[in-house]
């Protein structure tokens, strides 16, 4: 099986385990294995966040819908005779590097927003966001970061669709700056852990997360051409 065939299976796969052929392919193909792992991680984080019962702002959905419609991934339901499941639409969207980056950014923005709202709320609301509880030794905020760390591990390799290594300077730049942002994230997390009521440190942490998401999106969006897109 070739990589493009595997990607086609991913596109058509609604839920459930992958076919044996596809599983055999990802055993052999590091690129597709990394892609599958990344998408699964993002997908899982999305589900986890959805499970918390927090509704993102309407504008997030509007911008997401506009993005998907612009990419012809979804259509206006009034015009679509046989709409696919929402989950299917998301999964299809993940197949496009630009959109995967956008999803990542949206998830990140949502995480930041929820955390921010959690902090701004009452102390009882804080209980729902244990990452901000002072006594937590390993705040759950790290779990979100682990996703991005996994993402960054593969940036600069051929496993990231759209990012090829013909221009080593660009690849090096992205990797170097990912390292810078990772370092900032680590410093901010340390500050937030040491000073849970330090609002400024928290804002910097969210800013660093956002920057990382944008950087990953840029890495995935940048092909080897600047052609009309």
């Amino acid at each position, binding site marked *: 099986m070739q990589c493009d065939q595997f990607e086609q299976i991913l596109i058509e796969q609604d839920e459930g385990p992958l076919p044996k052929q596809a599983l055999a392919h990802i055993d052999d193909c590091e690129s597709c294995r990394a892609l599958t792992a990344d998408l699964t991680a993002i997908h899982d984080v999305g589900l986890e966040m959805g499970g918390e019962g927090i509704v993102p702002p309407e504008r997030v959905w509007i911008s997401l819908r506009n993005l998907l419609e612009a990419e012809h991934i979804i259509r206006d339901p009034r015009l679509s005779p046989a709409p696919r499941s929402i989950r299917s639409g998301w999964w299809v969207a993940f197949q496009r590097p630009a959109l995967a980056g956008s999803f990542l950014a949206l998830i990140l923005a949502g995480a930041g927003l929820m955390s921010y709202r959690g902090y701004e709320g009452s102390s009882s609301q804080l209980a729902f966001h244990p990452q901000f509880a002072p006594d937590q030794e390993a705040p759950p905020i790290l779990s979100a970061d682990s996703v991005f760390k996994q993402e960054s591990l593969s940036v600069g390799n051929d496993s990231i669709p759209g990012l090829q290594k*013909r*221009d080593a*300077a660009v690849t090096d730049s992205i990797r*170097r700056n990912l390292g*810078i942002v990772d370092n900032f994230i680590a410093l901010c997390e340390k500050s937030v852990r040491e000073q849970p009521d330090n609002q400024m440190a928290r804002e910097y942490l969210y800013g660093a997360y956002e920057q990382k998401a944008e950087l990953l999106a840029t890495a995935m969006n940048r092909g080897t*051409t600047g052609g009309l897109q």
Partner: protein
Amino acid sequence: MNVSCNAVKAGVLGAVMAGCFLAASPAHADRVEKHYNVQSKPKITVRNSNGRIQVKAWTKSEVQVAWLNASGKIVVETEQAGNRIEVATRMSEDVASADDMKTDFDITVPVESELNVRTDSGNVTVESVHGDMTFDTVGANLQLSDVDGYVVVKTIDGSLVCTRCSGKLEANSISGNMQMIQPDLDSLRVQTSSGNILFDGSFLSRGIYIMKNFSGTIEVHFHSGDSFDLNATSLKGDVVNQASFKPDTHGSPHLESKFGHSLFGTMNEGHAKVELSSFSGTIKILKRD
């Protein structure tokens, strides 16, 4: 009559086909130059991977695009639809290195023009263009001079030098330095993570200036006649101040944060608003000579 009509049609068809071929033909080492007549304010979009992009203004109602790709392995696609002009590079299959991709552009536009530039590496310079502009780069350095409009810059580690820029500027970088020299901006929002920020100019009345970084230095040069409210905070770094501020009389009083170093105050009437913020960098508010 029919014969002559057919001949005309064939000629037109041939010309169109030739035009299409030329518009997307592989570039050669020779310099290629194209001209586009425009009316009012054109919008020019440039997409390039690697190479210098230089944009200058002239008084003609015409856009001139010239490029040079030494390797001859890059296809330059151009398109005009009324006042919209798009220029983009596309590599052929045998491109092997960044040098193969390098394409230098010299673009001349009417003074009143909109620009949209996306490039990975190579310097971008824009001179004397008035209009809204966006720049999206990875490592390309950006030099703007005498531009006026709403300018948005997004770069990863490219630097920005904005000399005598007017209007509004939003710039975001991770490791690039940002310099605003003799600006005439009434709105500034600049953010870089590890880069340094320099603002050397006057704060306009009613202007809002927000400069933020993580670990670099933020340096603001003020004149004793400037009028602004200041809010400067560095969480882990220092705030160095040469100004004599009086307490901010606008709005609610600022509470001293128990974290980091902060400085609040008003210079003269406090017409402009200046916010400086750093995580671990040093903030310097220095008097201009």
